[in-house]
């Protein structure tokens, strides 16, 4: 126990740095995947068949294969197969590659939730907008969008909490997120080696962060309760 108390400050500092990278990946993924998901949702609902087919095939592939494989392919494929290592070899390159994989993967999941949300808004809402002389984009932004958001908050909360923990998959391309930081003390880092407790300790970070998100998303759900 005493040993752990001595190691604690060093470990916490390392884990904090790793967790910062985890948070960065989390927010970049959200910022990219939330809007991109909408674009993909519109693609899959397109009345122009080739577009909707193509989009649905892409969504099928992305949702049908492990994110870990996608990370490996996106990170290694350009360098090892094409001989053009576009991501570079440093931490920033790994971060960009991981962001691309996460944004694309999550956008595909979000798109299906969006599609469900949009299609669950009664068609009468659009028709009411049309007969009132509104344009289709006015109808989407002024009428449909908020009703869709209200409907998708619970399933989106689920995905967002999953994302918090999925960021750990970026460990596979050695992104220095919190799992990587915890594992370092197993192999040996800053005079500490053979210690597994830092790795176990990382769970607490995820737990606290997803707790905070649960509360915030619950607040959003409540806020949208003013209408039905």
């Amino acid at each position, binding site marked *: 126990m005493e040993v752990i108390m001595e190691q604690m400050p060093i470990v916490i500092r390392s884990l904090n740095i790793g967790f910062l990278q985890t948070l960065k990946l989390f927010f970049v993924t959200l910022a990219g995947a939330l809007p991109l998901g909408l674009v993909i949702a519109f693609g899959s609902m397109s009345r122009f068949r080739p577009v909707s087919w193509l989009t649905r095939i892409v969504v099928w592939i992305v949702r049908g294969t492990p994110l870990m494989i996608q990370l490996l392919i996106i990170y290694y494929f350009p360098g090892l197969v094409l001989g053009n290592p576009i991501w570079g070899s440093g931490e920033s390159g790994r971060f960009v590659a991981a962001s691309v994989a996460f944004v694309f993967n999550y956008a595909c999941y979000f798109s299906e939730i969006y599609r469900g949300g949009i299609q669950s808004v009664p068609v009468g809402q659009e028709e009411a907008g049309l*007969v009132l002389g509104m*344009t289709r984009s006015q109808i989407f932004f002024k009428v449909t969008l908020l009703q869709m958001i209200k409907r998708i908050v619970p399933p989106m909360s689920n995905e967002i909490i999953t994302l918090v923990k999925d960021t750990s998959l970026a460990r596979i391309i050695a992104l220095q997120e919190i799992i990587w930081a915890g594992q370092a003390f197993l192999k040996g880092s800053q005079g500490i080696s053979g210690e597994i407790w830092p790795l176990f300790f990382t769970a607490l970070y995820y737990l606290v962060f997803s707790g905070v998100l649960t509360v915030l998303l619950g607040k959003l759900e409540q806020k949208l309760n003013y209408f039905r």
Partner: protein
Amino acid sequence: MPILEVEHLCKTFERTEVLKDISFSLEQGQVVSIIGSSGSGKTTLLRCLNFLERPDSGVIRVNGEVLLDAGNPSPEQEAQIRRKRLHFGLVFQSFNLFPQYTALENVMLAKELLAKEQPDYKARKNEIHEEIRVLAEELLRQMGLENRMGNYPHQLSGGQCQRVAIARALALKPDILCFDEPTSALDPELTGEVLRVIKELADQQTTMIIVTHEMAFARDVAHHVIFMDDGYILEQGTPEQVFGNTKEERTRQFLSRFNQGQ
């Protein structure tokens, strides 16, 4: 000149002919009631007038201007259709109020969006907004909803919702206001308050087309009654002609239950 002329309107869904050679006209300030059993094409007719469906053939004229000549295949731009729609208003059976807006906001929304297209919008923004609010409040008062303006649709009864929907349609000052079974989703008590409001509009010479299953109301409020059956206009004329001196056997059959109740 009639405000509305509909000539030889036809509409087919898949292989079902829903409207077959529909022709009628309507004078300014008058009310036409359309009656008939479910599936006879009444709703589709209103949807064609409001450009929610495109007829396969036929002509629609408002104030002499050809709004739609379905035989003319020139593709219409979305923006043009949008302009044309504004000649008509439509009140739906299921109200279709926007749930995230209050009664007042529901009435104001479309008008405000349209105002943004005015050239002087930027300069007179606050003034225009105020004008629209005053108009919307006035309409809601007229509908007997002065105490309900700040309520959201889910806080209102069905009858109140439908009256908000009527105010919302009136806010755009359509030439012709259409009702698609406006009381079919309401219980008898709430039906009365909505029909009263429509009757008041008729007394103020609002030009209206009312699809309804309320036979007594159709007879009392209308200047002209159309009976539709299987996509055709089987019989039309004054309420006295259609209800009193029914010519067609099918119409008599349809009206028999109603007449027994009288």
